[in-house]
């Protein structure tokens, strides 16, 4: 395997071209299989082409670099090696602290040659190590460290901002739904579906905006697009492929739990 494949996700075209050129100089055997200008494109390309390395700009239109990483961790097939991720940012003190703490690979823009060279060496070393081990073990490790990173970056929940009532409009009516009655929230495009035992509402809020305003102990995120009230979970079952699905009290449907949150459902 002399040719390593990589994906560059960067919305500013000059910077994407610049990174490509720098990498061509420092790592000629690296083949850039895709250049994505936004998060969704990056995700689609990564899932389709399965690169070994992904350079993810943090600030991108649509999905951010971190959201792309989260989606990759959740949807990546078991039997393929999970890509090495390198985050790229111009300035984000908060994220940098988390990166340092979790020993995540990152690059600062403007990217200077020396640091890029060091990053390339690190990546080559990691790829060589991985070549020998089992892919599923690597994926588990990668997912674990990504979970730790996302946890470190999650915005702090402010108790004063806690929502007690969801106000959902429908036509000329406004429904006041106590948060306690919500079985689960599900992201749908730019909206959020609010599912209670007998009704379904829609609100204009992103899951990212909602999460810090919920009590993390009562409401669990089980998937990048789903947050469930723990009390309403009847049980969790694992199928032959290892995927966990939740059965709910008062609702017939089952919810899928992604890899990132499977650790929540273990027997005491």
């Amino acid at each position, binding site marked *: 395997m002399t040719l390593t494949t990589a994906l560059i996700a960067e*919305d*500013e*075209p*000059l*910077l994407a*071209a*610049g990174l490509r*050129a720098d990498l061509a100089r420092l790592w000629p055997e690296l083949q850039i299989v895709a250049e994505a*200008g*936004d998060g*969704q494109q990056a995700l689609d390309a990564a899932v389709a082409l399965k690169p070994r390395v992904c350079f993810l700009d943090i*600030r991108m*239109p*649509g999905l951010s670099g971190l959201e792309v990483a989260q989606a990759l961790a959740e949807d990546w097939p078991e039997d393929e090696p999970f890509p090495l991720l390198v985050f790229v940012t*111009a*300035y*984000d003190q908060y994220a940098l602290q988390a990166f340092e703490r979790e020993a995540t690979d990152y690059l*600062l*823009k*403007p*990217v200077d040659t020396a640091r890029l060279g060091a990053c390339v060496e690190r990546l080559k070393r990691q790829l060589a190590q991985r070549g020998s081990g089992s892919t599923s073990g690597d994926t588990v490790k990668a997912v674990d460290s990504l979970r730790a990173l996302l946890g470190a970056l999650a915005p702090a929940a402010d108790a004063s901002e806690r929502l007690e009532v969801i106000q959902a409009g429908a036509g000329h009516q406004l429904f006041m739904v106590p948060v306690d009655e919500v079985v689960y929230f599900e992201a749908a495009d*730019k909206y959020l579906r609010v599912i209670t035992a007998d009704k379904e509402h829609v609100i*204009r*809020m992103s899951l990212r*905006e909602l999460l810090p305003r919920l009590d993390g102990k009562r409401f669990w995120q089980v998937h990048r697009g789903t947050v469930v009230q723990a009390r309403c979970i009847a049980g969790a079952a694992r199928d032959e492929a290892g995927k966990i699905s939740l059965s709910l009290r008062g609702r017939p449907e089952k919810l899928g739990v992604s890899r990132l949150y499977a650790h929540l459902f273990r027997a005491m």
Partner: protein
Amino acid sequence: MPDNGLVPAPVSPAPAPAPASESATAAAASPLLWPFLKRGLWTAAICAGVAGLLSVATSGTDRWFTRVVYSVIIGLFCWLFIDGGRLALASAVARWRGEPKLAHSWPGWGWTIVSILPLGSFLGYFVGATIADAVTGFNVARPLLSRPNAWVGVLVIATLLGGAFTYFFYSREKIAESKAQAQAARRAAAENQLRLLQSQLEPHMLFNTLANLRVLIGVDPVRAQAMLDALIAFLRATLSASRTSLHPLSAELGRIGDYLGLMAVRMGARLQHSVQWSEELADWPVPPLLLQPLVENSIKHGLEPKVAGGRIDIVARRDGERLLIEVRDTGLGLGGGLTRGAADAGFGLEQVRERLRTLYGERASFTLEVGGAGDGAGDDDSGCIARIRLPREANK
């Protein structure tokens, strides 16, 4: 028996200085205890020094040590009663009032001191003199005690001296306090300036722009120079923009044009832009970088997050007696108020409103509305239109 001349002219210090609130718990008492004890030390030192000098000056080395002893002991007791009494009384009053700690930096000023001072000085003198008598073997206190006529004299002198010491310590404390305040104010001002500068420069914008510039230098040096020129002009304008000065419209639109040019290099085809104004309005005075927050908002919250990008168009034209500047973008609409990065967008808009208010009062206006066909619900791709109207003359 030594005569009264030995009585160390009551160099009775009344160190009732420095506030120190003694609340119930020992932990809270320590910040007060230490200054309290220090004042005692000062008192003893001053008493010893003054008494010693006076004694040597008046009667040579004869009995100067005894005088010093008297002075120090009497002084210390005066200190104990006055300073300690003041603190004890002030904290008792505070506890009675229900205040947990003495908040005031100089508790016990005012009526407390007026009552404590004479009493403390008087008591301090006699108790101190008595003890000193016991120590030295002389007899100073008793003759005075037995002559009530002398009490007034003692009271007056003791109180005066006590007052002098009190004032001495009080002043020192006040000076230290105002120095600390001045330092804190300077630090706060420096921090504010730094924060303002940071918010104006927006590091993310700066580093991304420099990153683009770096690539451009290798790829297209001529364009790189033009980009650098735009960046320099923009930085100058940002760093020197004061809140109340004015510059001509042509300069303002030039700087905004620079900013848009920089963003266009970064966003490539995702940002189309135009800036238009009629020549006759070129020298209309406007506040520097007034449009900055609006354009930033449009791009940051309207166009950058939109995958396909869009346009931003700025038009300046006359509207009756006022200048109308329109900033129109085709990015994400205002949505439910939550989709367009509410918090810092709001901050930028507030800045614009505040600047207009400061300079023009009610004569300027600022509106923000949904663009396109614009129904109230805010279609997500209809963008925004911001309109600023301002008169020719600012408020004096």
